[in-house]
């Protein structure tokens, strides 16, 4: 059982974090792994929506979330945070975007900053799983077309009716309860 590191304070990520990191094989070892992820994180901050392999997307997503949460918690006047942003964003104009566009955008959000979708892959093919990684609040049109609030779907109509019946029986029970004590009280008095 190891003691937690107390020199740093980090805010909790809103995504699920696996217990260990992925290896993302690279001849340069851990350094090469980070170099790979730097490119992806830069691309995500730049384009706001990218399509890539699942493993790399999931790993880069964690780093992007951490980068934005660090930027939110420390601001642009904190030197270590600026160094981190400088390391992770290969194109330096994106540092401005991080602190001046993304931080105000996500400052008051209570959910994760990024979103990941499964991308379609060719049928009958042994293709690697692809995903789409995007920053929330991006200017592109939404990827999903579903309308969860369609009241006219059959299941919703049926549930509405069931709800009505359930409430009616509940009210009837309450009314019965209200009436019975009075009856019992009356003979006493």
């Amino acid at each position, binding site marked *: 059982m190891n003691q937690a590191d107390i020199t740093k304070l980090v805010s909790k990520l809103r995504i699920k974090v696996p217990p260990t990191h992925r290896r993302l094989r690279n001849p340069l070892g851990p350094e090469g792994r980070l170099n790979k992820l730097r490119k992806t994180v830069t691309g995500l901050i730049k384009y706001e929506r990218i399509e890539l392999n699942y493993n790399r997307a999931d790993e880069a997503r964690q780093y992007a979330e951490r980068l934005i949460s660090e930027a939110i918690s420390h601001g642009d006047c904190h030197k270590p945070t600026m160094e981190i942003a400088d390391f992770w964003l290969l194109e330096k104009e994106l540092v401005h975007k991080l602190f001046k566009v993304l931080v105000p955008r996500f400052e008051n959000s209570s959910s994760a900053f990024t979103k990941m979708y499964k991308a379609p892959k060719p049928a009958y093919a042994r293709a690697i799983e692809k995903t789409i990684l995007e920053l929330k609040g991006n200017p592109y049109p939404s990827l999903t077309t579903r309308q*969860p609030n369609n009241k006219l*779907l059959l299941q*919703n109509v049926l*549930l509405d009716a069931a*709800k009505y019946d359930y409430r009616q029986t509940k009210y009837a029970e309450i009314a019965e309860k209200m009436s019975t004590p009075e009856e019992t009280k009356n003979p006493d008095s």
Partner: protein
Amino acid sequence: MASSNLKLLCTLLSRIRVENVTIKRNLYQPPKYRPPHWYMPKERVLTDDMVTQDNRDFIDEVRQDKLNLQTAMESPLSKIEPQETVQWNPTTRRVGLIARKIGNYPLWTKSGKKVQTTLLQVVDNHVIKYIPPEEYTPAKDYKPKKVGKYRLGCMLVGSETIDPTTVTKDYCGIFSSVGMLPKRHLCRFHVSPNAQLPTGTPLFATHFRVGDYLDIRAKTIDRGFQGVMKRWGFKGMPASHGVTKTHRRPGNIGAGGEKARVWPGTKMPGHMGNRWRILRGVKILRINTKHNVLWTLGVGIPGETGAMCYLFDTVLPLKKLQTPPPFPTHPPAEDLPLEYYDESIHLFEQPSITFEET
């Protein structure tokens, strides 16, 4: 013409004789898998049903109401008079519990010795069903005994209430017949007929007592495909001194001649862990009645933190129950002390240990 032909055929047929019959058949017939008869498929493909938020709230409300009903349900044991219950004797077998392993931490004995303990949490266990021995035909036996030959009945116990929308309707049916929401784990225990419990009885950690011994059955940690050094504890070979490419290999696996084959049971690389194992004779050191947690001696309980394990009274002859335990189980009680300690354990709220000069 036709009759002569028929005659000829008859004479020919009468000559045919069957000398001996050899039926080629595979001698080994693997036992057919029969799931237990209470088995119902549990997993369901989860789909997005596009239900409106209003209706989703309604489903939650109904579930909450059902959960409230379940918690308000009185234990059937409280209705039974204590005189009616049967007396315990050493041959009876009680029901066990389903627990979750939640971690390890040390306790100290009164002599100042540190002992490692494993914490097991008993999460809302309920009796779901009892099958008397006359009707019970377990599937595992190759040649099932005749009905009525079994001495022990079968008791189904479930633990950890889950959302009914995440499992199949059939699986929910097992529980709804008792008036309960479905449980994540369903397990059977063999019990003596006089130790049977009415359905819906809640089981608590106080089913066991401090100082008793347990048998714990659980799945070991899944370690995947491993070599012989990790799997069987082989020594391997030296790191240097001219050794090439055989540092962690098993070496020789057999002789020549008549034995020129791999003998069955040879220790070889392969899949390690993820098997059911029983650790017998584990002592209970401490019990928390509020959270239903048991502190057991040692860290050898199979499985990682968060794994499920099944607890039974031990079968070891020297550690068996000597005095009557709560039988058939401990009834729900309000005025229990918060914690029970074994007499050898030092309580943290007691003053520090000192030794007397002799």
